[in-house]
């Protein structure tokens, strides 16, 4: 009998970890992974809420999120590759031509 909030808090923690990752990681790919982490956090709360409300649409939503995540992954990694081609680096701190 795990109370619902616990799931939610767990998801929250994961989400927070994702945010932190985005903030502190330098490697683009790692940052991207942190985003995935955030998405997963969200997914968890979807499923949890779905269970809470007995509404399957939550689970369906998760399904769609995964699709989106997949798409994003494809595009994102492509972009990363493109950047890598032009800049020879994966360190976001060094990807700052555009500023001011």
């Amino acid at each position, binding site marked *: 009998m*795990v109370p619902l909030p616990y799931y939610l808090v767990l998801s929250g923690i994961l989400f927070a970890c994702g945010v932190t990752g985005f903030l502190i990681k330098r490697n683009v*790919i790692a940052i991207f992974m942190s985003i995935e982490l955030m998405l997963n956090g969200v*997914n968890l709360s979807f499923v949890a809420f779905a269970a809470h409300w007995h509404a399957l649409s939550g*689970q369906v939503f998760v399904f769609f999120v995964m699709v*989106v995540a997949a*798409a994003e992954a494809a595009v994102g990694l492509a972009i990363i590759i493109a950047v890598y081609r032009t800049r020879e680096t994966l360190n976001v701190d060094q990807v700052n031509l555009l500023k001011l």
Partner: protein
Amino acid sequence: MIHWIIFVVFGAISVAGAINLLAQRHPINSALSLIAVLASLAVEYLLLGAEFVAAIQVIVYAGAIMVLFVFTIMLLNAGEEERTRGSRVAILFGVPGMLVGGILIAWVLLRYSGTQSVEAGALPGSPAVIAPLLFHDFLLPFEVTSVLILIAIMGAVVLASREPSPPPGERGRV
């Protein structure tokens, strides 16, 4: 009771994995720890009865997507990330902001999202019950995702494909 144990254990694993993801300096390790997170989340899904979701979580997410990641990492043979200090803002404002936000949300969730528990498999999300939703109620989104995928493919093609072109401006009219 058993639920408790499973929840705690895998919850712990996922969190640990998440933290490890942050801690690890080599992206490949991060990727692996992410996989761990995903896998343990799949278990949590099962615990909540979302069988179908759990399945694709493992197949699509932990499987396909992460493979993509690993592949990229290999392709670009990304090395250890050097801890350049490019951004003070992120540390000075970002992290505290994140903490505040996170704590607030957590607090709200604990305080206001009701306390009733969900027993295992509360809402059995077998493919059998998901399918009608997916192909009936959510037909349109489902179809639209195809466009999404299409775009993703195009994007990948455009961006990742090498430029077989002479230097710029040569054919550029003036």
